[in-house]
């Protein structure tokens, strides 16, 4: 190879010069470049290849780093929710609810049961949409567009449900300290019922298309396996870990928001390969549908949708115009004169990709002193170079999409 498109002092250039294959061929470098239609997000991998086989990979991330942790140090608590939306943007309600729960843990606020059940419903809807994207895009990467186009219309239906609840489709900025900003309209519940009727049929068809499909099985079984010990060492959580056989789920280990009231199983795979990850996510969608149905059936009566904490929860705007206390609370909350303890709190929820944690350090002022996001994608993407060692290039693409790496959560 006459010119390498890497700086000559790069490690791979050295390796290529030194190694001579018996048949006279050389190793090569492939830049699975930052913008690539098959990598879902912007991350670069420089691959050292022997023909079609990958020998080593060097990942570069940070293309969508937006300094959320720095911004969060300069914003009051209710202005941090839009940042959390944009981390795992495929399932933003989960991030939002996790942030509110962190604050409620900090401030020792008890959320009413009905609001907790509503949160469970919206978080499970978000989980369904996240797994829907991951599995259908995995299908696309193996060449099957139909599944993706077919189930994506259900993602549109979920967007409409989010719009009924909070006004936004993708980056939802949903909720308040103690609950929701408004009660769910009857239209939201009606759309939810229609979704719960139509979606299971479509998901069953989607599963039938892939699960025993010879081509799909050949493309995904034994591709990118990871053992349970390796996965735990690399900090895997969520469906990727459960596919390797470890049944750690934050909803079961440390239940939050009344998850202990619901009956669901945690699907577990065996070998941690791509096919297991696909099947675990499929099974989790079924469990999420079941949890939503249980929550709707057991929903407490009444229309409580937030905790009674006037010091932290904005009063209705109509009251602010003629009620003195509402005016005072509104002013204090917006300007940040709310009582905040000096404390540290860590709260974790089961996000679409694993344990999403928020480590919040406060110093009594209206902005956090330090807010760190424990982002599951960032942590398990470290294992990617090891998982693709020795695999073919097309396997590397399939492994990447089965890991469900969302760039927003990777870089934050």
């Amino acid at each position: 190879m006459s010119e390498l498109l890497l700086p000559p002092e790069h490690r791979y250039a050295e390796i290529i010069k030194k190694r001579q294959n018996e048949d006279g061929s050389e190793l090569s470098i492939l830049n699975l470049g930052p913008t690539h239609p098959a990598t879902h997000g912007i991350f670069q991998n420089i691959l050292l290849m022997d023909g079609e086989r990958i020998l080593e990979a060097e990942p570069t991330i940070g293309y969508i780093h937006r300094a959320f942790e720095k911004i969060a140090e300069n914003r009051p608590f209710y202005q941090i929710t839009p940042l959390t939306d944009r981390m795992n943007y495929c399932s933003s309600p989960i991030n939002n609810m996790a942030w509110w729960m962190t604050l409620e843990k900090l401030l020792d606020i008890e959320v009413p049961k009905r609001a907790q059940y509503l949160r469970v419903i919206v978080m499970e809807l978000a989980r369904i949409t996240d797994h829907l994207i991951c599995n259908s895009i995995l299908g696309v990467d193996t060449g099957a567009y139909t599944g993706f186009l077919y189930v994506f219309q259900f993602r549109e239906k979920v967007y409409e449900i989010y719009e009924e609840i909070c006004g936004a489709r993708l980056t939802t900025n949903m909720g308040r300290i103690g609950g929701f900003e408004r009660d769910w309209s009857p239209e939201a519940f009606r759309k939810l019922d229609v979704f719960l009727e139509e979606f299971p049929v479509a998901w069953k068809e989607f599963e039938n298309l892939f699960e025993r499909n010879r081509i799909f099985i050949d493309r995904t079984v034994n591709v990118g396996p990871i053992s349970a010990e390796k996965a735990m060492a690399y900090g895997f959580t969520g469906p990727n870990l459960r596919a390797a056989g470890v049944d750690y789920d934050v909803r079961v280990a440390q239940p939050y928001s009344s998850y202990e009231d619901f009956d669901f199983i945690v699907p577990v795979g065996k070998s941690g390969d791509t096919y297991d990850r696909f099947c675990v996510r499929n099974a989790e969608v079924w469990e999420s549908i079941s949890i939503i149905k249980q929550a709707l059936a057991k929903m407490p009566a009444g229309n409580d949708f937030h905790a009674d904490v006037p010091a932290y929860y904005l009063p209705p705007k109509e009251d602010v115009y003629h009620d003195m206390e509402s005016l005072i609370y509104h002013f204090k909350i917006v300007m940040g004169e709310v009582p905040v303890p000096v404390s540290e709190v860590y709260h974790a929820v089961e996000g679409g990709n694993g344990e999403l944690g928020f480590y919040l350090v406060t110093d009594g002022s209206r902005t956090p002193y330090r807010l760190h996001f424990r982002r599951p994608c960032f942590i398990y993407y470290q294992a990617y170079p090891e998982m693709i060692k020795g695999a073919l290039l097309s396997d590397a693409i399939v492994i990447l999409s089965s890991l469900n790496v969302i760039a927003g959560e990777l870089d934050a």
Partner: protein
Amino acid sequence: MALDTTQIQDKLVATFGESVFNFTQEKSIFSLEVASDKITAVLLFLKNDETLRFNFLTDLCGIHYPENDESHQFTVVYHLHNWIDNVRIKIKSYISGTNPEIKTVSNIFLCANWMERETYDFYGINFIGHPQLKRILNMDEMISFPMRKEFPMEDGGRTDKDDRFFGRTIDNC
């Protein structure tokens, strides 16, 4: 057999004595401080001991306290989780402000690799023994460590937004 916090504290104090101190239970997580030169020994002990069994490193991050005295200006915070007994623990280790360095734990927990790179990228904390300590989220050519408190979030050249109307002052953000 539940593992409770007195057992954890007794075992740690018995093995490490003065290097582990300041045990508190705050907001349902048990936390302690560890002297920075003993951090690898403490984490290895927490991972390998048959009663403690903290097999999972949940999180590793840094915090900057410029108001503290010089030897306590940076801290590295480790969140560990024992999956078998379902116990979480938080360990803080304070290090010097002018020359922040601490030994790496990426040989104990593989996932600490990128977490330490991120902490280096944001704070400039040197993790001794790290296999590839270079920036991960920011550009390689960057010379400042942006999460340190002395670096402002914005460059102050905005003319379209007056911070007074947002309740922002020098003191509160």
